[in-house]
């Protein structure tokens, strides 16, 4: 099955199921996410872009592991920390940068910005600025899938904080009673802004909450793309079979602060360093090399190509077209309507 043909027979299913090219593409997407966010951060520091941003650096294994088995016709709903989901689902970083820079060429024509970047054409129904906002929307998309008798799925990303919103309860309950093809992916990065899950939840795991809805609740190591993908693959298969929704909790960590204003007063340097040592990207690189799927030279080439793509994306965005202020109300309503 593997193009390289050197896979160790004891390698976990993730490495058996995908071709070497697919696995290398997964690594490339993880780099793209990392470098996209680092590039965005640099552009912000240099005063090239304004507003705020929520970086997912450290969570790339979860974003790519969750999305790599999806089809274009599957949907995702994403979050304020959504750049990774967007790239994972197939968006072009250059058009994402154009959005970040507020340009007409951007995915949202400069109207959405960091918190709303979404490539609708690849099935992304929107990154959402409201914590928990995407949860019932994913359920609605899954209801449409079922009504249209498709075997697609709706993947719903949300964080630990969103699992304390009422929308979480309402959405999971409705998906469960109607057996809808939803994969709920909770990226538990331990903090809702500054408040830790220890302080905001009385149960140890978000996955434990799945029992209340009669759906499977699975925990994955969010910093291992393989662990995430295997848990997600089972949830996707269950959804496509018509057996209903699942909840997958990816335990992970954002090594950057919540947003630009964060001074990291609520967590220790030791904790941050401990998680940085578990960076999902070097982890995946060493696994690929250990399994003979990629050489070090190939890994370096993938990294360099991702860096070049990001640099070109920033240049593209810088030269983009500024929206015309006279068009501020464009797209509030559909043109075909009154």
């Amino acid at each position, binding site marked *: 099955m593997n193009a390289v043909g050197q896979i160790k027979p004891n390698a976990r299913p993730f490495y058996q199921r995908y071709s070497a090219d697919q696995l290398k593409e997964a690594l490339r997407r993880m780099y793209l996410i990392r470098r996209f966010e680092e590039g965005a951060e640099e552009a912000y520091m240099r005063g090239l872009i304004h507003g705020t941003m929520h970086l997912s650096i450290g969570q790339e294994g979860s974003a790519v592991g969750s999305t790599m088995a999806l089809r274009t016709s599957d*949907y995702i*709903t994403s979050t304020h920390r959504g750049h990774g989901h967007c790239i994972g689902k197939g968006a072009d970083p250059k058009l994402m940068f154009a959005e970040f820079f507020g340009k007409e060429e*951007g*995915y*949202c*024509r*400069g*109207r*959405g910005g960091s918190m*709303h970047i*979404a490539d*609708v*054409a690849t099935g992304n*129904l*929107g990154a*959402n*600025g*409201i914590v928990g*906002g995407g*949860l*019932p*929307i*994913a*359920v*609605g*998309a*899954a*209801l*449409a*899938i079922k*009504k*249209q008798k498709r075997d697609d799925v*709706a993947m719903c990303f949300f964080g630990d904080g969103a699992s304390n919103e*009422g*929308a979480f309860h*309402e*959405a999971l*309950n*409705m998906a469960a*009673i109607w057996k809808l093809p939803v994969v709920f992916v909770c990226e538990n990065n331990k903090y809702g802004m500054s408040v830790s899950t220890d302080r905001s939840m009385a149960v140890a795991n978000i996955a434990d909450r799945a029992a209340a809805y009669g759906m499977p609740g699975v925990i994955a190591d969010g910093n291992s793309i393989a662990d995430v993908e295997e848990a997600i693959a089972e949830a996707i298969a269950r959804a496509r079979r018509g057996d209903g929704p699942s909840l997958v909790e990816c335990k992970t960590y954002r090594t950057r602060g919540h947003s630009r204003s964060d001074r990291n007063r609520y967590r220790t340097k030791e904790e941050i360093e401990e998680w940085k040592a578990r960076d999902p990207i070097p982890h995946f690189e060493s696994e690929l090399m250990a399994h003979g799927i990629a050489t070090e030279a190939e890994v370096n080439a993938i990294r360099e190509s991702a860096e070049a793509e990001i640099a070109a994306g920033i240049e593209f965005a810088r030269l983009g077209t500024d929206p015309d202020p006279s068009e501020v*109300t*464009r*797209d*509030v*309503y*559909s043109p*075909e*309507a*009154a």
Partner: protein
Amino acid sequence: MRELTYAQAIQEALAQAMDADPAVFLMGEDIGVYGGAFQVTGDLVHRYGEDRVMDAPISELGQAGVAVGAALAGCKPVLEFQFSDFATLAMEQIVNQAAKLRFMLGGKVNVPLVMRFPAGSGTGAAAQHSQSLDAWLAHVPGLKVVQPSTPADVKGMLLAAIDDPDPVMVFEHKLLYKMKGEVPEEPYRIPIGKAHVARPGRDVTVVATSIMVHKSLEAAETLAAEGIDVEVIDLRTLRPIDTATIIESVKKTSRLACVYEGVKTLGIGAEISARIAESEAFDYLDAPILRLGGAESPIPYNPELEKAAVPQVPGITEGLRNLVRGRM
């Protein structure tokens, strides 16, 4: 022409919309075998099945979000709120999602959904089941808000709302559900954003919404006997407002009164008054503008208090008489 009640007219519109387009489905609380709290959906579940007339759990926020997601993915959901007051539970999805997704995503999506809100006082249901929150939603760009006042209008406007590519909020006064009127049998559309001159007159323009249209028409009959000729405009749509029709009328009558059930302060009357004050019709005004709206209080339970909390025919009659006679 045959007559239908307002509730029957809604049901006929829903059935005709489902007949015409398999993407249309209904969702709400107790709209299936129960037939809806106000018997609007009636026996539709038996005719169209539970997949198209879906009883949902008591999760207004979740239902609103499901409607948004289904609309994004190619369906045309029509969501019934059991009482318009419960919109408060779903404001996140209505205001942040339904209204804004098209804009936030650069015009690359549509959110073709309809939400129906049984609204208003007069049923003894007290403060949490009697509000008129139409102006709240009309404040939000991205939404369209309609308030049909007759059986014929509600059928035509609901069908137009279901056709519309953008989210449309339909406010239905609960006291209108049993009102009868002539309703054409075939499907037809009444455009969103067009007011209707319900009674032409020379002396004063009344811009009224929903049940206040009928109360204003009753006041107009009384005043006609006194030689006061009242023009009643049924606004029908709160967003977008048909300002042109109101301006033309005020230029003719030189007087303006706004009659609405929602709380007077910061209500639809304030917006209409301001639009006239900003327009060329301002120079035609011979008297101050009159607003008759809901009291600055929640809707009370006691029947006499409840009546006192919203404009009634005697008060409207008196107000218009004073306005025309220059006794404000």
